[in-house]
């Protein structure tokens, strides 16, 4: 632009000021339009292949629609094409952090369907493994949540170090770190050895020290308090109506733990408390999990001390050519993420007629939009982290 052009343009744009100075008119290109942002599916903060379509007013979320299905393989259809036992390894892949509780929930539903008894030793071993899974899951979740808050690396690596000790126990018992395939209808696959039990005892004795260290690092941290308190609040009424279960429900102050309510397995024999939150925000969800881990250690100590001798499998249990009577059953347990249930419909054939999974983290995501509205994008990442999702289970 030449000097003369510039002068002509500025004479058009400018309005002469009273004082003589030229003030340029402001042409505002920001009209307050809403912006639609697609978060995910390949973003590390979405914990897998999860996508949220977020509508933003500035940085504030005014609408959020989750998009599912990137890991969908129609697990329920697969369950109809294989035998009852054939589905057991597939359940490992649902919530791949806690395969032991998935196995248990499925075994419990089939045992209800077929009227199968479980020996006492197997019930104790199931409790031990479920509580180890809870420790593993909650430790990882706390690590990931802190990673989402921006504590890059350190808490996550601390959590993963402890997870590795638990996975070592799982591997020496079942042969696989994560895809354990350990429970059977009417018991467990192998009997834990004395060495294994000593290892589990050592871990239970030591885990409290790790939690103290972890909490010193995180719980009172000013940045974490500033980022998580009052963020993503959930009311108890909405949580109940939306079918939210597990630590997310208890963080809103609703006293509902299936280990107490349904009293399945041998849980009534153990002395433990159910931690409850006050505010239902992200901080409460984090604290509930830390407190639950401390209760899990208590249960572990009691279960290891009281483990009876005896068979690990019911001798009458049928594994091959297993055909339950026609009928239906719904069985559920308290998984680390909430109520994991299996609904089975049998028509008397070796395969289930209908095999349905009630995935806790999928249903907990129903309220994601309600929790995120009015918060910023950075908060949405933390709120999603506090829901504790695993996409293997959400998409099935």
């Amino acid at each position, binding site marked *: 632009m030449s000097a003369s052009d510039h002068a002509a343009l500025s004479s058009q744009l400018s309005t002469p000021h009273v004082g003589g100075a030229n003030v340029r008119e402001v042409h505002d290109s920001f009209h307050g339009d809403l912006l639609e942002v697609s978060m995910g599916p390949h973003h590390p903060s979405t914990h897998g292949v999860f996508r949220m379509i977020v509508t933003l007013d500035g940085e504030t979320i005014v609408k959020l629609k989750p998009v599912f299905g990137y890991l969908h393989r*129609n697990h329920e259809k697969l369950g109809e094409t294989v035998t009852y036992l054939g589905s057991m390894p597939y359940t490992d892949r649902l919530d791949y952090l806690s395969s032991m509780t998935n196995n248990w929930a499925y075994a419990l539903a089939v045992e209800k369907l*077929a009227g199968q008894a479980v020996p006492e030793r197997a019930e104790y071993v199931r409790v031990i493994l479920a509580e180890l899974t809870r420790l593993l899951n909650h430790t990882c979740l706390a690590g990931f949540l802190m990673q989402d808050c921006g504590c890059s690396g350190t808490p996550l690596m601390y959590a993963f170090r402890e997870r590795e000790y638990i996975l070592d126990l799982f591997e020496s018992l079942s042969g696989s770190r994560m895809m354990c395939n350990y429970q059977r209808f009417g018991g467990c696959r192998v009997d834990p050895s004395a060495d294994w039990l000593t290892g589990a005892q050592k871990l239970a004795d030591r885990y409290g020290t790790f939690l103290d260290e972890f909490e010193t690092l995180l719980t009172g941290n000013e940045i974490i308090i500033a980022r998580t308190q009052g963020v993503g609040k959930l009311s108890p009424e909405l949580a109940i109506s939306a079918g939210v279960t597990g630590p997310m429900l208890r963080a809103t102050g609703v006293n509902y733990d299936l280990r107490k309510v349904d009293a399945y397995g041998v849980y009534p024999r153990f002395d433990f408390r159910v931690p409850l939150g006050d505010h239902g925000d992200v901080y409460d969800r984090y604290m509930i999990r830390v407190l639950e881990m401390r209760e899990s250690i208590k249960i572990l100590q009691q279960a290891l001390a009281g483990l009876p001798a005896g068979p690990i499998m019911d001798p009458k249990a049928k594994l091959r050519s297993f055909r*339950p009577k026609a009928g239906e059953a*719904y069985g559920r347990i308290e998984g680390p993420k909430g109520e994991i249930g299996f*609904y089975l419909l049998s028509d008397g054939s070796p395969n289930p007629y209908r095999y349905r999974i009630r995935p806790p983290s999928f249903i907990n*995501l129903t309220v994601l939009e309600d929790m995120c509205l009015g918060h910023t994008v950075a908060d949405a990442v933390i709120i999603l982290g506090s829901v504790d999702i695993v996409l293997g289970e959400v998409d099935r």
Partner: protein
Amino acid sequence: MESPEQIRDRLLARFPGAEISVVTNPGIAAQHSLLLGAAHARAIAEFLRDDPTLKLDQCSNVTGIDWPEKEIVETKNISTPDPANPAAPPKVVEQKTKRLQLGFLEVVYHLYSITHRHGPVIFRLRTGNRTDQATVPSLTPVWRSCEFQEREAFDLFGITFDGHPDLRRILMWDEFKDHPMRRDYAEPDDYEWEPTPHGTVLEKTKAHYPPPPALVAAPTVLPAAPAAPVKGATP
């Protein structure tokens, strides 16, 4: 907690004219359920949620089930007396009757009470058929937890939920046509079909790479061998 029969009787007293029946579960679990007609389903669901003795405030699980139409063969023994010899024992003939049971889709709801810590109360809704009357009332306005689960039943079974606020596919992609959880769903042959370059893309590819050099034919005529020396000739 009340038995399904007691709940049915109370519901019939509260909603006269509603279709309510108890579906017996023949299995060992004996979790019996209630079959509700579509007309009163929403009102009954609200009653179950708000009733002070039941207070079923949590709908835990929503399951779609497909029941395709099937032929039921019933065998009946019919005895006919011999007209020639009435004293003789009657002739027994096995008669088979075929009956076509119409197909339908079913939605099963598992309800629990968090307030009273009891459950499950199970009820079912059925569609008229599997094609043009595959509609049941949505219970998302009663329990929010039905929102995603009913969308899932819509996606995988093709059950339309009347009154659902946001009924879209959830696990399959929007352009997908069929309902994969139906019993008669056939996987397409070209499931792993991958597009190969075609049309303008193929033309562009051809223009991009120079044509391969023509092959030069190898010589087929071998050079003649040196002639053998003739006998008796002088060198």
